[in-house]
């Protein structure tokens, strides 16, 4: 059962999600004034696009059955299996930046962001990463905050 899910259903997920987006967009668009072709309201174009998107996704699902994800690492076409660690690390690092930049200041955000992103690779070299983080934070601060005037405080 899970193999079916993994091999057959999961690869179609993006197409399905895209279709769902089109559907949601179309439904939302309907609540805006749609109007007519020669007198379009704000809802017309989005509704049309939503419908087109759903149709395209349906066509894709019908005509192009998705190959199950392979584990081979050749050049073209094959897709690497999804690895959680780098994905989580990068996401966490950007999230950390977003949360810290305006509240804890430029340096905290930068250092945390670099440190968290280093977790993406299996054996982070912490000393070099910390040095990189400090260098980037300082250089970035000098360029962006001091020189260009981006309104972020250094600390806090």
């Amino acid at each position, binding site marked *: 059962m899970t193999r079916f899910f993994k091999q057959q259903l999961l690869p179609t997920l993006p197409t399905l999600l895209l279709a769902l987006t089109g559907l949601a967009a179309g439904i939302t668009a309907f609540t805006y004034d749609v109007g007519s072709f020669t007198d379009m309201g704000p809802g017309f174009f989005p509704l049309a696009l939503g419908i087109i998107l759903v149709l395209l996704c349906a066509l894709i699902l019908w005509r192009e059955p998705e190959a199950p994800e392979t584990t081979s690492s050749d050049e073209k076409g094959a897709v690497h299996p999804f690895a959680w660690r780098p994905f989580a690390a990068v996401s966490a690092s950007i999230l950390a930046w977003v949360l*810290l930049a305006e509240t*804890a200041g430029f340096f*905290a955000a930068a250092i945390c962001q670099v440190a968290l992103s280093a977790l993406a690779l299996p054996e982070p070299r912490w000393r070099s990463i*910390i040095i990189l983080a400090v260098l980037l934070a300082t250089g970035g601060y000098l360029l962006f905050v001091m020189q260009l005037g981006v309104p972020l405080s250094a600390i*806090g």
Partner: protein
Amino acid sequence: MMTRRTLLFLFLTSLLAACGGDNGAASNDPASWPSKPVRLIIPFGPGGLADVTLRLAGEPLGDALGERLVMENRPGAGGVAATTTMLNADADGHTLIVLTNGTTIAETLFDDLPYNITAELVPVSAVAWFDLVLLVNPDTGYTDLGSLLADKGDDLRIATINPGSTQNLTAELFKTRAGVDATIIPYRTTPDVLGALLRNEVDLVIDAYTALKGAIDNNQARPLAVTGEVRNPAMPEVPTATEAGIADFVVTGWNALYAKAGTSPEIIARLNTEIANVLATDDIRTRFEELGVEARANSPEEMQQRLLADIEKWREVIQSAGIDTL
């Protein structure tokens, strides 16, 4: 593997940073104010009218206060980003915000703003005033508003910038006051509006004087009326809309400085005096005039009255025009 030491180090750094706070909170003591540079939050991007006028006035003001005025641009629809930033600051007079008549429009346009402007912000003074202009293409030969309206009537086409802007709402108001069922065609920016006029796609354009001053001087657009209460000193021969025959149609845009509620009244009073002084200087007056803007301060009470009146005024216009709110 990450050592516990490095983990601890990271944790402590962040903690320190978060607690670092405001470089020692400045006291709300009017006697020592200002004790550090004053932030001025501008709800527009750099280069716009509000930005430029405040930067021009900001310098001498900073000199008078003894501390620099630091401009902070926080653009975003409805001024929400700017106001939120403002309200996160302390009420110690070291952070100010620029409100415009656009703010009064946003009060109606945005249903659930996460703050209450009238309760959480207090006025300091107005800074700049500007009116809008009604313009036509010189090639069309119209020299007064009356004949234009008589000729075109309900076929009148007016170009303005995007719906919800002061200019656009002024056009809506114009329709009502002039009694014409004109078609308002919105464009994205003032240059687009000018382009439309040059192409004769529209009959009339309503926009800020500053934005189209260049076009007027170049004779690309001819002003038929101004929307202010009195004639614009830069164009003394152009009548006001009232003089041109449109009753009860007066629109004046403004920029004003506001502080957070709870700021000590002495600080506000001092700011008000300094601003009035700066705006009275010849240098600032002339530079503002070159931009098509009038430098004029007022008292906090007058400013607040104006704010409330404008909120009401634009609420009426928005509701009767049926413009959607967020």
